[in-house]
């Protein structure tokens, strides 16, 4: 994330879109982190990235999905998918210890009625996982050309039947 929050390489997003859309720079940070992870695994293909977004994070999940898709489209990472898990605000009551979800900014403990509590979740903005398809293992060098060719033939024959079974989304 050097300098600018958002750098758009392809697509129709303009600098105006950038400055009005916080989520674009967040999406870009997610992509940069995913790229860094991919660089550590040569030949692997990134399939999906999972993020956690708290309702107090200031990030709108729909806008983040939109920005993410816009950045991925036409890029080397296409068709990388994004899965967002949203996290509600939760507080722990300082008096009775009850953990409760905050709805409509109501900070009153539902058990004891106290207003003293600590926020324990809701401001997350985290990468949770990456789904990766590892590189196909190349034929071992000692296999010899003929054996390698046979292996390739088998793969080709088996290929079409295995299409469509891959990665149920």
């Amino acid at each position, binding site marked *: *994330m*050097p*300098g*600018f*929050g*958002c750098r758009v390489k392809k697509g129709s997003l303009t*600098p105006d879109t*950038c*400055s*009005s*859309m*916080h989520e674009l*720079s*967040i999406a870009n*940070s*997610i992509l*940069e*982190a995913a790229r860094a*992870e991919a660089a550590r695994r040569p030949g692997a293909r990134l*399939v999906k990235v999972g*993020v956690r977004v708290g309702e*107090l*994070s*200031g*990030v709108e999940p729909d806008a983040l999905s939109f920005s993410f898709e816009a950045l991925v489209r036409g890029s080397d990472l296409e068709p990388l998918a994004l899965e967002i898990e949203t996290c509600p605000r939760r507080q*722990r009551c300082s008096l009775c210890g009850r953990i409760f979800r905050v709805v409509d*900014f*109501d*900070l009153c403990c539902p058990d004891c009625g106290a*207003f*003293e509590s*600590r*926020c*324990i*979740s809701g*401001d*997350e*903005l*985290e*990468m*949770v*996982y*990456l*789904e*990766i*398809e*590892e590189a196909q293992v190349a034929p071992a060098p000692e296999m010899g050309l003929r054996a390698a060719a046979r292996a390739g033939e088998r793969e080709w024959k088996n290929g079409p039947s295995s299409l469509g079974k891959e*990665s149920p989304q």
Partner: protein
Amino acid sequence: MDRVPLEKKVLSENDRIAAALRARFHAHGILCLNLISSPGAGKTTLLEQTLARFGRDERVAILTGDVQTDNDARRLARFGFPVRQITTGGACHLDARMVERALAEWRLDDLDLLLIENVGNLVCPASYDLGEAAKIVVLSVAEGDDKPLKYPAIFFRAELLILSKTDLLPHVPFDMAAARDNSRRVHPEIEVLELSATSGAGMETWLDWLEARRHPTPAAAPAPVATSTKSAP
């Protein structure tokens, strides 16, 4: 298909730089404050009137962020303190790297207060840690008193809410009690000050707040904060 757990912050690169900045500020005894508001809430005027009340020997510097122009830096430079403009060229917030670069030519030994005026925006700056000791959110009475509920992220993270332009109260329907109540619904511990940089009302309270943060009594000194989040472990 492999699923690789990551469990790291989306903005971990920014957070890494911010943590390094925070450590430098701490080592040099600098209090760094990050002022955030919507455009036009009066951050620059508040800073002008703050600098105007400082003695010449104050060791204070200002970083001011805008999408374009160095107008704010020019306004603030009149007071004789070091000022640097960060022009983001489109980005809607300052990030830690911009602050790191802007500080490169200053000797931190010469400072004990760094005031950062963020880009006018209540959304994006909330997500970016700049290594500050505290975020301050400025809300003018010309805006809606329900803004804390509309933009909770920044009110949740700010330590202090400054309700500005109070000289306009006779002319606007702003409900001061509602604004305080709304900000406390989002963040019960938030401190609230009211002031008008134009009339000067409330400026002393703000300067007292600054002074208390700059020279905390040992008992009141807050422990150094490692991150900007409020989450309990």
